[in-house]
C-alpha cells in the first residue's frame, strides 16, 4: 500500500502541471456555482481540445453531456463536472487489459514499439527495473540495431538496473537479435524478455515489414506469453491514433505506455488512441529517473487530470 501511495504521488506530480494548465481551468469553470450556458459549453470544448482530446471525441463527449443536461440529469455545474469526469474515466475503463504481462515461471516476451523519439529505450529500462524489483527475472534485448548508440544506451540502463542485455553489433538483423535473446532467456530460465526495437515511422513500409518479421520470429519460438506495447509520447497530437492503428496492424497491440507525462502536455489523445485500437494504457512515464513509471489507473488518471478533490487515493 505504501508502494502504491508512493507511486500515486509521482503521477500526481507529473499530472499536476497538466492540471494546473488547462484541465485546472475546467475545475475553476465548473466548481464555481454558475449557470450552464453556452459560454460554459464553449469553455469545456476549448479545454478538451487544448488537451489533445481531439475535435471528434470532444464533440461526442459534450453531446452526451448536453443530452443528460436536457434530460434533467445534470442540473448544476457541479453535476456537469462529475459527469464529465465520469465520461472520461468510463471511456478508459471500458478497455480492460487483455492478459497479464508477466508471470513467474512462464516465459513472456514483451515487444516494445513506437515512432522515433517517444522514449522506448527509457521506458524499457523503467519497466525492467519495476519488474525486477517485484522479483521477476528480466532480460533486455537490444533489437534497435539502427540508431547510432541505441545499443550502448540500453546497455548503460542495463548496468544501472542490474539487468542482463542481449545485444549484437550495430546494423545486425533485429530478428536475429530477438531469436538469440529468446534462446538466452530460456537458457537462463528468466521470466520475461523486454525487446527494444528501433523507432520507426508508421508510414515506412519496409520498416513496418521488418517489425512484422520480428513478431513472426517470436511467434515461431512458441513463447507462451507475447505482448506488444506501443510507447506514445504525451506531447503527440492526433497523429498518435494513426500510429497506433498501423503498429497494431503490423505487430498486434496489447497495451500502451504514455511517456513524458511530466511536461506541460496533457496526454488527452490517449482517449482516441485506446478507443481506436481497443488496447488499454498500462503504464505512464512521469520523469527521467529509473523509478519514474506508474501503473496506469483510469480513475486516478482522470481524477488527477480534471482535478477533482486533491487527487490522492
Amino acid at each position, binding site marked *: 500500500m505504501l508502494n502504491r501511495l508512493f507511486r500515486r504521488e509521482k503521477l500526481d506530480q507529473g499530472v499536476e*502541471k497538466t492540471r494546473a*494548465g488547462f484541465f485546472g481551468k475546467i475545475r475553476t469553470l465548473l466548481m464555481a456555482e454558475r449557470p450552464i450556458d453556452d459560454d460554459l459549453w464553449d469553455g469545456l470544448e*476549448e479545454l478538451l*481540445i*487544448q*488537451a*489533445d482530446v*481531439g*475535435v*471528434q471525441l470532444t464533440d461526442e463527449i459534450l453531446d452526451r453531456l448536453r443530452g443528460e443536461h436536457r434530460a434533467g440529469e445534470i442540473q448544476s455545474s457541479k453535476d456537469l463536472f462529475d459527469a464529465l469526469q465520469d465520461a472520461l474515466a468510463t471511456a478508459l475503463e471500458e478497455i480492460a487489459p487483455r492478459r497479464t504481462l508477466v508471470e513467474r515461471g512462464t516465459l513472456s516476451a514483451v515487444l516494445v514499439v513506437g*515512432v*522515433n*523519439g*517517444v*522514449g522506448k529505450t527509457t521506458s524499457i529500462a523503467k519497466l525492467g527495473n519495476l519488474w525486477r524489483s517485484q522479483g521477476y527475472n528480466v532480460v533486455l534485448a537490444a533489437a534497435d540495431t*539502427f*540508431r*547510432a*548508440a*541505441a545499443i*550502448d*544506451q540500453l*546497455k*548503460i*540502463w542495463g548496468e*544501472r538496473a542490474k539487468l542482463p542485455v542481449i545485444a549484437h553489433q*550495430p546494423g545486425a538483423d533485429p530478428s536475429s537479435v530477438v531469436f538469440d535473446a529468446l534462446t538466452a532467456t530460456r537458457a537462463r530460465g528468466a521470466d520475461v524478455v523486454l525487446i527494444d526495437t528501433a523507432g520507426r*515511422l*508508421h*508510414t*515506412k*513500409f*519496409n520498416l513496418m515489414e521488418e517489425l512484422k518479421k520480428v513478431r513472426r520470429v517470436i511467434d515461431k519460438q512458441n513463447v507462451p506469453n507475447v505482448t506488444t506495447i506501443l510507447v506514445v*509520447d504525451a*506531447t*503527440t*497530437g*492526433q*497523429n*498518435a*491514433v*494513426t*500510429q497506433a*492503428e498501423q503498429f497494431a*496492424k503490423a505487430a498486434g497491440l496489447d497495451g500502451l505506455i504514455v511517456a*513524458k507525462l*511530466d*511536461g*506541460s*502536455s*496533457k496526454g488527452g*489523445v490517449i482517449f*482516441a488512441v485506446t*478507443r*481506436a485500437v481497443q488496447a488499454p494504457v498500462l503504464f505512464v512515464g512521469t520523469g*527521467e529517473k529509473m523509478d519514474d513509471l506508474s501503473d496506469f489507473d483510469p480513475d486516478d488518471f482522470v481524477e488527477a487530470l480534471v482535478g477533482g478533490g486533491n487527487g490522492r487515493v
Partner: protein
Amino acid sequence: MATVVFESLSDRLQGVFRKLSSRGRVSEDDLKAALREVRIALLEADVSLKVVKQFVQTVQDKALGAEVLTGLNPAQQVVKIVHDELVEMLGGDGGPSKLATAPTPPNVIMLVGLQGSGKTTTAAKLALLLRKQGQRPLLVAADPYRPAAVTQIQTLGRQLDIPVYHEERRKPPELAQDAVRHAERNGLNYVIVDTAGRLVIDEAMMDEVAEIRRRVHPPEVLLVADAMTGQDAVRVAEQFHQRVGVTGVVLTKMDSDARGGAALSLRSVAGVPIKFIGVSEKLEGLEPFHADRIASRILGMGDVMTLIERAQQLTDEDEAQRLQKKMRTATFDLEDFLDQMTKVRQMGPLDQLLGLIPGMSQALRGQDVNIDEKAMKRIEAMIQSMTPNERRHPEIIGGSRKRRIARGSGTTTADINQLLNQFRQMQKMMKMMSRGKMPAGFPFGPG
C-alpha cells in the same frame, strides 16, 4: 468505433456550400459555416487552439472584404483565402531562409528542444549539409544526461567523417565555450551544439540552456520540434523563445503522415522562420522549408510541388521530349518501360509518393498502402532477364524464350505472359492517345 477520418478542407467546404442556397456570393452566414469547417480542419491538423482562433478571425476579416473572384465558386474562394493566409503566416512565398552568420567565424548553431524531438540526428544532418556547401563544421556533444547521447553523436560524426568535440565531466556551458575555441584554433567555421532534451517546466535545465547561449553567442538558435506535436507546441515555442531566444525552427519527422499543424503554431508563437524540415532517417534527409507546401499539407491538399520537384530531379527536358515522341509513335518498348519504372522507384517508396498526390492521402489513410513494391521488383527482374533485342521487340518472345526468361528471373511463364499482355495493352492505349482518343477509365486522363 469509427476511426477519425480526415477530410481535406476543400472537401469539407464543398460540402458546406452545397447545402447553402446562396450561390456565387459568400454571405456572412455562409462564411460563418465555412469558418467552422476551417476551424475543425486546423484543429484536426493539430494547430494550437489559440493560433486557430487568431487565424479564423483574420480569414473572416479578409473574406468579408474580399473581391469576388470570377471563375471560383464560394468554396474555392474560401480555400484560396485560407491557403494564402496560411502561406503568409508560415513565412510567405519567399523561399527558404538562409542561416545567419557571425561577424567573425566560427558560426555557432545551437540546437534546443524537448526530449526525442530529433536534435542529435538534426545536428548530424545539418553538419553534412554545411559540408556539402563547402563549409567546415564541428559537432559538439553537449548532452551529458541521456545515456549514450555522446556516443550517438560520436558515431554519427565517424560515419560522416565530421569532427565531434566532447569533454568528460565538463558542464555544457563551459564545454560549448571550449568547443568554440577548439574550432577557432582548428579553422573550423561552423560549430553545431547539440544540447540535451529538456522540458520547458524544468527551471534548472532551462537556465542551463540559456547559459550556453550567453557563453557562445550563436547567430542561430534552432528549436527542433517534432511535426507530430499536438496542442503543446504553443507552450514549447513560447517557453524556449522567452527563456533562450530562438532564431528559427527545424520541424522533424515530416516523413510521417502528420498534418504538421505544429508548424503553424510554432511559427506564429515564436515569430521566427521555419528553416528546415527533416524528411528521412537518412542523414541526407534535411530539406529547406516551403511555406506553400506545408500549407497544402495542413489543409490536407497534398503536396504536388514536392512530387513535381522529385520527378524533375530525375528526368531532364530532352529525355521527356524523346519519351513523348516514342509514346506518340508507339515505339515505346520494354526497355523504356524498365527505364521509367526505375525512375519512379528512385523518387521514393510508392506509398509515400501517393501521399503527396492531392486527395490521395485521405483515400489511402488507414488502408494497407502496400502498392506492391515486390510486384514491381518482379517485373524489373523479368525485363532484365530479356535480351536487348527481346526488350525492343517483345513480339519475338516465344515459348522457349519465355521459359528461359522465367528461369532467369525466378518467375513462371504465366508471369511472363501477364507482363507481355499488360505491355501490349499499354501500347494499344498509347496509340489511341496519340490519335487523340482517350480510352474510358484511363487513370489520369481528363474527366
